[in-house]
C-alpha cells in the first residue's frame, strides 16, 4: 500500500540546479518589489492629486490586484495580452503579473500609512520654507515608509511565493519551474517538492529576519 521509497540522494544531487532557480526567484521578487514600490508611490501621488481620471486608475488597479487571484493577473499578463498580439516571454509576463499585484497592495498600504501622519507635519515643513516636494520627500515619505515597512516585508514574501505561479505560463527556470521539470524527469516528486518547500521557507525567513535588522538600523525613533 505504501510502496514509495524515499531516495533523498537523487533529489539532493539536483540541489545546485534548484538553487540556481532560487536565484531567479529572488531576482523576480526583488525586481517586482522595486518596480512595485515606485509604481505604488506614483499611484499614491495620483490618489492625493484628486484628479478624477487618475483616481479612477488607482481605484481600478487596487481593486483588481486585491480582489482577483494572482494567478489570473499573471495569466492576463501572458495569455491575455497575447490575444492582442503582444507575445511576452514567461519571465516578463510573470514579472509584470507580480509587479501589478505588488503595486496594488502597496498603494493601499501607503494610503493607510499616510492617514497616520498628521497634516500638521506638512504644515510645519512648509512653514520652514520647504516646497511641497521637499516637505513630502524629507518629512512625509520617511515616516510613511516606516509605517508601511512591515506590510512591505509581507509583500516581499508574497512576491517570492507568487513566482511559483509562473509554471502556468511556461516559466521553467525559477525555483518552482526547475523543480517541476526535474520531477518530470526523475519522478522523485515528494523529495524534490519537499526540498523546494524548504528552500522557499528559508528564503522567506531570510527576508523577514533581514527586514527586522534593516528596520532596527533604519528606524531608531
Amino acid at each position: 500500500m505504501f510502496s514509495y521509497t524515499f531516495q533523498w540522494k537523487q533529489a539532493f544531487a539536483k540541489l545546485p540546479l534548484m538553487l540556481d532557480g532560487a536565484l531567479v526567484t529572488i531576482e523576480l521578487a526583488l525586481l517586482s518589489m522595486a518596480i512595485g514600490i515606485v509604481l505604488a508611490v506614483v499611484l499614491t501621488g495620483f490618489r492625493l492629486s484628486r484628479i478624477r481620471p487618475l483616481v479612477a486608475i488607482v481605484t481600478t488597479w487596487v481593486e483588481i490586484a486585491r480582489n482577483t487571484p494572482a494567478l489570473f493577473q499573471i495569466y492576463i499578463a501572458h495569455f491575455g495580452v497575447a490575444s492582442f498580439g503582444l507575445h511576452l516571454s514567461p519571465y516578463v509576463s510573470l514579472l509584470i503579473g507580480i509587479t501589478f499585484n505588488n503595486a496594488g497592495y502597496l498603494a493601499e498600504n501607503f494610503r493607510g500609512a499616510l492617514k497616520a501622519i498628521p497634516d500638521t507635519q506638512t504644515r510645519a515643513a512648509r512653514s520652514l520654507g520647504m516646497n511641497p516636494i521637499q516637505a513630502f520627500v524629507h518629512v512625509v515619505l520617511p515616516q510613511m515608509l516606516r509605517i508601511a515597512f512591515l506590510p512591505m516585508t509581507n509583500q516581499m514574501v508574497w512576491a517570492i511565493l507568487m513566482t511559483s505561479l509562473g509554471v502556468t505560463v511556461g516559466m521553467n527556470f525559477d525555483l518552482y519551474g526547475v523543480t517541476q521539470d526535474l520531477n518530470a524527469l526523475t519522478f522523485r516528486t515528494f523529495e524534490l517538492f519537499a526540498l523546494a518547500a524548504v528552500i522557499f521557507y528559508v528564503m522567506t525567513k531570510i527576508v523577514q529576519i533581514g527586514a527586522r535588522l534593516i528596520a532596527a538600523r533604519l528606524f531608531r525613533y
Partner: protein
Amino acid sequence: MIEIENVRKSFGPLEVLKGINLTVPKGEVLTIIGGSGSGKSTLLTCINGLEPIDSGRITVDGTEVHARGTDLNKLRRKLGIVFQQWNAFPHLTVLENVMLAPRKVLGLGKAEAEAIAVKQLTHVGLGEKLNVYPTRLSGGQQQRMAIARALAMSPDYMLFDEVTSALDPQLVGEVLDTLRMLASEGMTMICVTHEMKFAREVSDRVAFFSKGVMAEIGAPQQIFENPQHPETAAFVKLTQA
C-alpha cells in the same frame, strides 16, 4: 514691518476674520488674546500664507503675502512660526530637526547647518539633547526645539500660536522664559496666548480679538486695567477670576 489691511477670510459660510487692520513694526512684541474661535490662529496662518485670504492685504516688509507671483517659500524664511501642537519631525533627532530646513531650504553645508543648529539649541537650553529623538523629550522641550528650529532660519519675525496651551502646567514656565528671552533680545513677535501675566509683562501692545474682529488694541495697562471695550473688560475679568 507686518501690515494687515482690512483682511477678510471665511471658511465656507463662516466668516472668521471680519476686516482686520493691524500694523506690527519691527521690534514690537504684540500679544493677541481672545476667546476660542475668535480667529487668532487663522490670522497667524494667513500672515505666513499657509491660508489664503478672501480680501484685503497682508504685506511683510513690503512683500504682499497673497499676491500672485510672491515666492511664499522664500517669504517664510523671514517668518518663523511655532504652533500649539508641537510638530517635531519624529524620524529625525533634535539636531537633525533643526538642521533640516537650513540645509534643504537655505542650501547650507552640513557643518554650517550643524553649527547654527547647535547654537540655537543651546540658546533654548537643549544643548544636552542634540542626538535624542523628539519622542524622548518632554512637551516643553519639544516646544523649545520647535522654537530653535524656527530660529535656525534667522527669521525677522516670530509668530507663536498658543505655544504653552497643550503643556502640563509645570512645563509652561520654561517655554515662556524662552519667549521672554527672545523678546528681550529684540525679536519682533506676535504671540497668541492665554497666559495673561506673560502678556502683561512682555507685550508692547495687546490686541483683543472677539468673533473675527479686533475689538481693542493698546498698551498692556490699558487692556488689563482700563479696557475701553466692554467685551475686553468681560474677558479680562473672566481670565482673572
